[in-house]
């Protein structure tokens, strides 16, 4: 009976109820979206690298090393000498290494000098290996493998030739035009910075920089295992035979006398970096809380202002024997009906929007998102909203209770 009365009473005030519902829906959409973006950002952030035990670079802060080696943000202050690299790569505890040489670009995209180990050992997400959507890895020194997004944005295909620029600006005055690279492979989208990078063999990069290798045009990468590039690299990632030795090796590298080096555990550095981003996260949370508060106050205002015109109604309910606590309950049910409707509408709208934009986001921005905004966090927020809503509607509820208690029969 209460639901029926509450429902009809709401229907009787369609316009103000619709406006309140719309404002609450928008607020819940904001709360859900912010939370979804936050959790997706965190997830996509944490999926940038996996399966790598240590990242080694010249002495710098762990976050800086992570930023330039994984996120390709900023620059290394120093390179690593080849002796140090060879020494560590040759350590019996080390299973594989991925050398990284950074600093060149192609039309604004970063160029990463490496070798085929990159495609073999680099992992992202939940231990997923890179895969080729077209072509394959390096076979000669002047081959290049593109990330998914570059290929899409610049409309390159396997077999095209490109030239690199020195430095990382979009326009460079020093182009390595004498040494074109041929595209041999395009990687499948990963939703990580790999999508935005051009990968070339270290020898090719050296060649482009004028470091002469003998007969580099025929130089095969397969041979390269026997004769590691003599040039310097910016950083390298390594995998161990046994993860047990990770701290031991990290300490050994950090304390290495031959050169000032830093070795980081990617997971630890990612967590540290995320903490830095935590401020942004908090700001988002505060903004959505304020939006939420505003619209909850809106509900309370709506109910409260309707109380004046409903005094007669409340009095009638009381005169036919409805207890004042039932009148109170009626107001609460109305508020909760609005909240429930707004929550359902908001979740539905966000899901629809995510589903519709999923393909576009992954194609245009390489963003891989989860289309369902439902998570335990969202459930928690919705719970909070319901709680806040029932608490705030206590105000008009109490007003209703008071007015009906003090009422005499008005004639």
């Amino acid at each position, binding site marked *: *009976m209460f639901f*029926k*009365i509450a429902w*009809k*009473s709401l*229907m*009787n005030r369609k316009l103000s109820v619709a406006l309140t519902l719309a404002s609450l829906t928008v607020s819940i959409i904001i709360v859900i979206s912010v939370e979804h973006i936050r959790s997706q950002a965190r997830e996509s952030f944490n999926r940038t690298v996996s399966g790598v035990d240590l990242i080694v670079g010249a002495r710098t802060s762990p976050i800086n090393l992570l930023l330039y080696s994984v996120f390709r943000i900023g620059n290394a202050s120093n390179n690593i000498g080849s002796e140090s690299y060879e020494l560590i790569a040759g350590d019996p505890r080390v299973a594989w290494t991925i050398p990284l040489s950074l600093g060149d670009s192609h039309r604004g995209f970063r160029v990463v000098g490496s070798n085929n180990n990159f495609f073999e050992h680099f992992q992202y997400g939940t231990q997923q290996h890179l895969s080729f959507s077209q072509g394959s890895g390096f076979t000669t020194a002047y081959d290049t493998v593109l990330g998914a997004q570059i290929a899409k944005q610049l409309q390159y295909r396997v077999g095209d030739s490109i030239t690199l620029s020195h430095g990382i600006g979009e326009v460079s005055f020093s182009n390595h035009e004498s040494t074109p690279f041929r595209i041999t492979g395009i990687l499948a989208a990963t939703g990580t910075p790999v999508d935005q990078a051009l990968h070339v063999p270290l020898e090719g990069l050296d060649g482009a920089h004028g470091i002469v290798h003998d007969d580099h045009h025929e130089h095969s990468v397969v041979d390269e295992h026997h004769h590691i590039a003599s040039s310097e690299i910016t950083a390298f990632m390594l995998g161990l035979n046994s993860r047990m030795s990770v701290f031991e090796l990290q300490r050994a590298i950090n304390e290495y006398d031959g050169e000032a080096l830093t070795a980081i555990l990617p997971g630890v550095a990612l967590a540290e970096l995320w903490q830095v981003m935590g401020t942004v996260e908090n700001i988002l949370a505060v903004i959505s809380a304020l939006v939420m508060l505003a619209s909850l106050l809106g509900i309370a205002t709506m109910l409260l202002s309707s109380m004046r015109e409903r005094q*007669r*109604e409340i009095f*009638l*309910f*009381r*005169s*036919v*024997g*409805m*207890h*004042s606590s*039932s009148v109170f309950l009626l107001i609460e049910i109305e508020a909760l009906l609005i909240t429930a409707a707004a929550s359902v509408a908001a979740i539905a709208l966000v899901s629809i929007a995510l589903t519709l934009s999923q393909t576009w986001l992954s194609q245009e921005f390489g963003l891989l998102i989860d289309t369902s905004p439902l998570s335990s966090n969202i459930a928690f927020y919705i719970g909070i909203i319901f709680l806040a809503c029932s608490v705030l509607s206590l105000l008009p509820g109490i007003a209703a209770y008071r007015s009906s208690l003090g*009422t*005499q*029969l*008005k*004639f």
Partner: protein
Amino acid sequence: MTYAIECQEITYTWPQANNPTLTIESLSVEKGERLFIHGASGSGKSTFLSLLAGLLTANSGEIKVLGNSFHSMSDRQKDRFRSQHIGFVFQQFNLIPYLSVEDNIALPAKISGLDKASISTRTRSLLDSLLLDTKLLKQRADQLSIGQQQRVAVARALINEPEILIADEPTSALDEEAKDEFMGLLLNTQQRTGSTIIFVSHDRELMKHFDQHKSMTELNAALPKRGTNVL
């Protein structure tokens, strides 16, 4: 126990008021009686009816309704008692505007827990006796004419077959013709159900329909006596 209402030495003073609004030395209404109380506005009749309904509690004295004293009841018990034993018809705006006629009539019955079948039978018999078309049942209450609304209000007041019906100026919004028709229907229906009726109005014209007449000026000792009016 033949009295519907007994009042002994009751006084009521509104909070923050210096003098009592209502003082009634003694009043008793027999069961089945039709009592007309004449009173202008400001004569304390609203206060009196609120006391009878248990919405206000007298500062002193005792009111017994059907032999029960509100003094010993909790708020919830009062609400329950009211819905089962007292029906109200007010001057105007008796109905919840957004509910259908049917839902309005059924409201007190649902609150007191009457089963659906009985609600439906009683509703039909009340509509019949008040000359209301059953087609009106599904209409929203605010779509009815004032005359129809007042009759629906009587149906609602009587759905729980209360022993007491309190009507306060129920005809003041009606024109002369509708007034007579309403009075006829009200008293006929009352006769059928056998409830005690307490009818309050400033309109002496209506007095003719009742066997007992009282005036607030006689009843309420707190009112300034005629001739000593300060104004």
